[in-house]
């Protein structure tokens, strides 16, 4: 036994085992012990440094040079109820343990963040102070060695005082060099959009393709020089560079979106993005009107040059200029996040073109957005000016959308609600103004597999009611959807602001309305007006003037029905049926986009009505021979404001012709012509 102990203690083997164990134990005890002491100080110092409250549940040392922080949470709240909360399941630090023991200095070589969950409610992180904090932090780091920071399984959630939450997923590795050059790369993407309140467990928008990025930037005293910032996705790439000095950020660069950056084997989409944008907007493909022109299906954003001012609570895009497929665009915007959120943005194309030339440029547009968000309600205005070009016309056009108290919310069931108290849409094409207003508008989006499939709409329209739904195949681009609405009891005279057909028609209008925007814009349906009247309808006024039938100036009717179809080529009324005691009017009427009319109509007039006319006295004998009421069939053609008229052949017309000699026919014809033709040709 003795000899065994002797052999044991005097042989080198046990020391090979014991000494490292002792070193590990001593180091562990020393580091762990001192860290425990400093934990409170670390929390306090970091909180002061980052401007966040900080809590670390557990702090552990792992031999030889790793430090693990478990369940670390940073949080900040303010009086408005906004808060930021960052929760890290694990932070692993690699540090210089020798330096720590000998010099009591803490030098980090590597930092690894695992499962970072960050929640920003209200005010976003992109503020001057946050960026300045990062600049200050980087500049203050020890410069002896480079530091590598790894973010793994990072999830960042944003909610801007609303019910919706945007969750981003990211994996990133950043290296901070001794010379303050920061290089980084990683990927970022939308993980999902969901309910902040967590009422809904399903995602509204599910994960998409991740965007990979790489960054080279040098931090200087009051900012940083962004030497290279690149983003890449399967069908998107961007390269940016610029600088941040104080609160002024300047960014330049270019970007490609489309086939140019796709894999060769990838199936190409049928349409380019530019086409899809046009389709969403409901423009015909063969029309030359384009906000963005097509260039081999690609969307090339070149010559990006921007000056952005970062404010304490907001951001000002002082100018942002770029070219998309050779069309120059300019944007100015101001987002103020102090108190109520307010936004003002203007965007325009060909801004620097001389005004006279610009007004005739089919690719020019101006867009202005003004609004504010208060108590989760958006009030604002969107104004767009552009030149609408069709086959025959170039019309300066403008539309103005004015929202009152627009809210976006999540119902108890799975979906999304959009409501507003009132929406006014004013639309002007050339000299023709159109107006529509909706009140108490509610739209409920029902989702399937992360995307909305059915939208139920219930609203007041003018003084009536609108109810219906949209079945959406794809929000696009292009927007593939069929809209079906029923309209009840709208005063038809209010609808005249939408269609000149109704400018002299009065009565409660009900009907159905369908429309789709792809593959081409089409609005169709039917309507009926019961117990209404026609007040100086042009055709009836003409009849009343020409044939001394004054009752036609103001004609009551039992019902007025028609089917309608509006598309880029024409506005048509078919199966027209006006039913009144003394007359019936049936037929079709088509007004083409170039203002040309084509119409076939049948008019039944009662014998009593015809016999009341002094001008038709010579025909009374013929009327008496008619078994029932008298039918007039006729056609209309020409310009809407100067329609031509033809009385088509019928047994009654034959009898009239037989009753008069030719010269009387000529006299009647000349009289009629004088009535309808105000502009004689010399």
């Amino acid at each position, binding site marked *: 036994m003795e000899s065994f102990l002797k052999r044991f203690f005097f042989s080198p083997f046990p020391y090979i085992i014991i000494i490292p164990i002792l070193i590990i134990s001593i180091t562990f005890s020393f580091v762990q012990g001192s860290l425990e002491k400093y934990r409170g100080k670390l929390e306090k110092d970091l909180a002061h440094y980052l401007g966040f409250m900080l809590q670390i549940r557990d702090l552990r040392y792992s031999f030889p040079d790793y430090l693990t922080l478990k369940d670390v949470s940073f949080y900040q709240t303010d009086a408005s109820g906004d808060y930021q909360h960052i929760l890290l399941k694990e932070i692993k630090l690699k540090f210089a343990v020798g330096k720590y023991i000998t010099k009591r200095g803490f030098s980090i070589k590597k930092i690894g963040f695992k499962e970072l969950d960050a929640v920003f409610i209200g005010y976003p992180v992109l503020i001057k102070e946050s960026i300045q904090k990062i600049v200050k932090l980087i500049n203050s780091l020890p410069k002896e060695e480079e530091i590598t920071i790894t973010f793994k399984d990072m999830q960042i959630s944003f909610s801007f005082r609303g019910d919706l939450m945007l969750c981003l997923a990211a994996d990133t590795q950043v290296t901070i060099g001794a010379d303050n050059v920061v290089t980084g790369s990683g990927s970022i993407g939308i993980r999902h959009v969901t309910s902040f309140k967590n009422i809904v467990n399903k995602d509204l928008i599910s994960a998409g393709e991740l965007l990979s990025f790489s960054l080279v930037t040098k931090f200087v005293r009051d900012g940083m020089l962004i030497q290279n910032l690149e983003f890449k996705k399967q069908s998107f790439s961007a390269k940016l560079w610029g600088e941040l000095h104080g609160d002024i950020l300047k960014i330049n660069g270019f970007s490609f979106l489309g086939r140019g950056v796709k894999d060769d084997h990838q199936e190409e989409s049928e349409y380019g993005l530019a086409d899809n944008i046009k389709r969403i907007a409901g423009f015909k493909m063969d029309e030359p009107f384009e906000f963005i022109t097509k260039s081999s299906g690609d969307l090339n954003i070149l010559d990006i040059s921007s000056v952005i001012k970062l404010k304490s609570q907001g951001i000002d895009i002082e100018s942002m200029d770029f070219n998309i497929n050779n069309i120059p665009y300019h944007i100015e915007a101001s987002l103020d996040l102090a108190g109520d959120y307010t936004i003002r943005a203007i965007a325009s194309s060909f801004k620097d073109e001389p005004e006279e030339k610009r007004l005739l440029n089919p690719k020019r547009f101006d867009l202005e957005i003004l609004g504010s968000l208060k108590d989760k309600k958006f009030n604002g205005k969107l104004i767009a000016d552009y030149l609408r070009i069709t086959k025959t016309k170039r019309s300066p056009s403008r539309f103005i959308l004015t929202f009152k108290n627009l809210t976006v919310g999540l119902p108890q069931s799975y979906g999304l609600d959009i409501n507003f108290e009132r929406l006014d849409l004013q639309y002007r094409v050339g000299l023709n103004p159109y107006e529509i207003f909706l009140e108490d508008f509610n739209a409920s989006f029902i989702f399937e597999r992360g995307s909305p499939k059915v939208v139920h709409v219930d609203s007041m329209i003018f003084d009536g009611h609108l109810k219906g739904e949209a079945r959406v195949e794809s929000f696009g681009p292009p927007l593939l959807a069929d809209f079906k609405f029923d309209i009840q009891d709208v005063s038809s005279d209010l609808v005249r602001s939408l269609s000149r057909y109704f400018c002299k028609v009065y009565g409660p209008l009900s009907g159905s309305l369908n429309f789709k925007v792809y593959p081409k814009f089409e609005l169709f349906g039917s309507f009926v007006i019961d117990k209404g009247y026609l007040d100086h309808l042009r055709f009836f006024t003409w009849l009343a003037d020409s044939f001394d039938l004054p009752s036609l100036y103001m004609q009551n009717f039992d019902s007025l029905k028609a089917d309608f179809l509006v598309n880029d080529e024409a506005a048509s009324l078919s199966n027209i049926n006006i039913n009144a005691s003394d007359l019936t009017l049936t037929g079709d009427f088509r007004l083409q986009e170039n203002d040309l009319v*084509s119409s076939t109509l049948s008019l039944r007039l009662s014998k009593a009505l015809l016999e009341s006319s002094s001008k038709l006295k010579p025909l009374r004998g013929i009327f008496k021979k008619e078994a029932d009421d008298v039918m007039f069939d006729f*056609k209309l053609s020409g310009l809407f404001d100067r329609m031509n008229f033809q009385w088509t052949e019928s047994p009654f017309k034959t009898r009239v012709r037989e009753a008069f000699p030719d010269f009387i026919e000529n006299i009647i014809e000349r009289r009629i012509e004088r009535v*309808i033709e105000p*502009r004689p*040709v010399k």
Partner: protein
Amino acid sequence: MVNMDKDFMKSSVIIFLIIFVFSLVGCKEESSLYNQAMNFASNDKRDFAYMYFNKIVTNFPESKYFKNSLYAIAEYYFMLGDFSKANESFWMFIEKYPQDKNVPFAYAYLLKIAKSNKEEKTQDYIEKEVISLKQFSLLFRESKEFKYLSPFYREHKIVYSINKIEFYIDGELFEEILF
């Protein structure tokens, strides 16, 4: 003083007489040119007729014969196949005399030229202009006709029907607008 007044009166009268005589000569010259042009046109000597019509257009822009002469040279250019000059002259004619009876036919010529040049937008514009020129009603007839002779003695006929306008020259269909 009285003598001075008399002298002034005398010289004024002489100047007036000179202007009057020269204007009569000018008038006579225009009239003569036009008559000669029409004579050549009636004898189907179009080139000679053109020379005289062109003299009026070049030298007498204020003349009462200018309108017909301008139409005539436009028509001559068209018959010659010089569509560029015909185009220019017809548009000038329409611009100067938008209410003239020849305007629909000037448009018909321009429509023919636009079709030949495959200028769709111009075609659409011209067709709409022609349709808007005349509003008509057809009570007992199927169509309405308007006839007149051009300065080159070509019979121009326009037939208005409810869904088309036809242009005939010397009895042959020249152009047609459907609507």
